[in-house]
């Protein structure tokens, strides 16, 4: 198992820069997520770490060794693809043992290894079945087995759950995470699904247009987004953005927006111009009394909570409130925001303004 360090990694395809100057560190044993929309450079980054793609410049350190120009076979890494490529003419046992047999491992040792992997994955009962008749989940377990059996330094996974249907995906995500907790193997995992990243990851890198937007733990990224892009990409429903023009001073604990004053975390920098007031739906409170009001245009029941969509002077926004609180479409209600959770953004650059809330997190880049 290994620590992976990425330094100023860059990849150009002709004139197109897929990944620009990325640096981050993956700790030994971490479940690390590369998250972003399609075309953001996350898969290219993963392929560079695995050695399927050579970087234009930069360094990749795996287990203390610089490998950026080494072929994939010399990096001792296992790669799990989105389409589980199993050998169709072999049974499950042969599929799993294939990487070992091709290394020339003695047969008794191979049997032992396969049995161990099958036990970890809970597929002992299907070892002698042909892979043709397996369910999607079992096929994926076998594909994982083939990756695990080699004891590689790290696992690279490129949206391994992408091909499964939603219901099953959640189940497999849990299983994969539990497997990781048992084995403690360094894993780099690419996904475009923010919920999957939040659910499974120890750390997340959020990428967009080849640039790392933010790097940190899931909770930090959720609570303290560094950019508008991150704030919008993480969370469902997404963070509410109220656009306004105004100014704040360093040390301010209030901001004036649409002729109302709102409490905010103490500012660490001053700003004057177009801003965005960002607040998560669960930090919006509805009440009867108050002067910042909005009209309820829709409510969506979700069991314990409901999502209410409101039309306000600052634009549409969503609130997540308990489902036993009455929210009738057409009614006008007062809105309040949990002051400690608000983030202000520079509307132009999308950058979060530094405040008491996010000070420790920004800076990481």
């Amino acid at each position, binding site marked *: 198992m290994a620590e992976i360090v990425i330094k100023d990694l860059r990849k150009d395809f002709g004139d197109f820069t897929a990944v620009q100057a990325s640096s981050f560190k993956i700790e030994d044993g971490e479940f690390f997520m590369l998250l972003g929309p399609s075309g953001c450079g996350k898969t290219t980054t993963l392929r560079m770490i695995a050695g399927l793609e050579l970087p234009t410049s930069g360094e990749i350190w795996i287990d203390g060794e610089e490998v950026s120009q080494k072929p994939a076979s010399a990096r001792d890494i296992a790669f799990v693809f989105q389409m589980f490529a199993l050998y169709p003419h072999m049974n499950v046992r042969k599929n799993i043992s294939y990487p070992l047999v091709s290394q020339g491992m003695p047969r008794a040792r191979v049997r032992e290894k396969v049995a161990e992997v099958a036990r970890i994955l809970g597929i002992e009962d299907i070892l002698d079945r042909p892979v043709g008749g397996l369910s999607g989940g079992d096929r994926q377990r076998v594909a994982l087995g083939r990756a695990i059996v080699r004891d590689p330094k790290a696992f690279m996974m490129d949206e391994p759950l992408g091909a499964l249907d939603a219901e099953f995906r959640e189940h497999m995500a849990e299983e994969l995470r539990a497997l990781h907790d048992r084995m403690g193997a360094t894993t780099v995992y690419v996904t475009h699904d923010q919920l999957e990243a939040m659910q499974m990851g120890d750390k997340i890198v959020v990428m967009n247009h080849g640039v790392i937007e933010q790097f940190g733990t899931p*909770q930090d990224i*959720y609570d303290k987004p560094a950019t508008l892009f991150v704030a919008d990409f993480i969370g469902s429903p997404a963070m509410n953005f109220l656009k306004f023009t105004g100014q704040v001073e360093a040390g301010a604990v209030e901001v004036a927006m649409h002729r109302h004053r709102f409490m905010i975390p103490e500012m660490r920098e001053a700003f004057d111009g177009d801003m965005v007031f960002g607040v998560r739906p669960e930090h919006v409170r509805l009440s009867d009394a108050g002067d910042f009001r909005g009209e309820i245009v829709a409510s*969506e*029941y979700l069991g314990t909570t409901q999502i209410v969509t409101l039309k306000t002077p600052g634009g549409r926004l969503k609130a997540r409130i308990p489902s036993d609180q009455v929210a009738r479409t057409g009614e006008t209600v007062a809105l309040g925001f949990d002051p400690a959770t608000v983030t202000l953004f520079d509307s132009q650059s999308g950058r979060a303004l530094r405040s008491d809330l996010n000070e420790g997190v920004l800076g990481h880049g």
Partner: protein
Amino acid sequence: MAEVILNGVSKAFGATRAVRDVTLTIPDGAFVVLLGPTGAGKTTVLRLISGLEQADTGDILIGGRSVVRDTPAQRDVAMVFQQYSLYPHLTVRDNLAFPLRSPILKTPEEQITRKVREVAEVLHIAHKLDNKATALSGGEMQRVSIGRALVRSPQIYLMDEPLSSLDAKLRADLRIELKRIQADLGATLLYVTHDQIEAMTMATHVGVLDQGRLVQFGTPREIYESPVSSYVASRLGLPRINLLPAGLFGGAPSGARTIGMRPEHVAQGEGKPAEVIRVERLGDQTRLHLRLEGHDIVTLTEVHTSYEPGDTVAIQPRAALYFDAAGARIG
């Protein structure tokens, strides 16, 4: 728009009984969602109503008229498929106009032009009308598919997981949009999905299917709060309801085999000690994965909780649900 009634409808494919004795009334103007896992018979119900499949037994009435002998065209229904319903050789405009040009509707061209434009505006695809269908993004394609149904004014709209191939954000937007369009049109809509969020957020009524049987029909709140069985209880609610041996905490009614605890039914602070296995921070909620006497329990806790794996937390049920040996609800 019309009321649609299924009366004791069954359908088998060989030895597989896809739909078993389903009786269901879809009220005029209702948004009914059929919920169930793959293979529960949801899609077959849609296909039976549309006439793409013939029922083995039972009657189907659309607007009070039995349609079991009618062809799909005669039934006057519109259907949105999960995928593949856009014709790749036609432009978006021609795709939208296709149903209106059918021999049954034979709409005059100027009326088609108007209708297509109207629907395109509603679905925000007006600027793509002259694109080839294949030159659209997934979200746009699915909006055109829905548009192909909306250009008509059928007795009922049938939708087969129309949002399942889209990403989460788009799905959330289209959910609200679809709900709004349905309410504005006063349309009768039957929607099939295995996504409980779609079922809960859009439906006026939810029907839960289990192996071809309709096991419960009611408002989303009824289904969530008073499920008739442990099966129904586990179809709605995220994280999923915890189903544990009834005797685990004591105080179970007689005959109870299983206790069902939704996350809000797990009270923290008193009761039996459970070990924290994993703290899952999803941003807006934090899930605690607990282990109690060998049973896994998932519950929610305060977002910025200080619990760590290995900690112990005392839990006990609060207003939990109980089920008998067959899975039926008790009390």
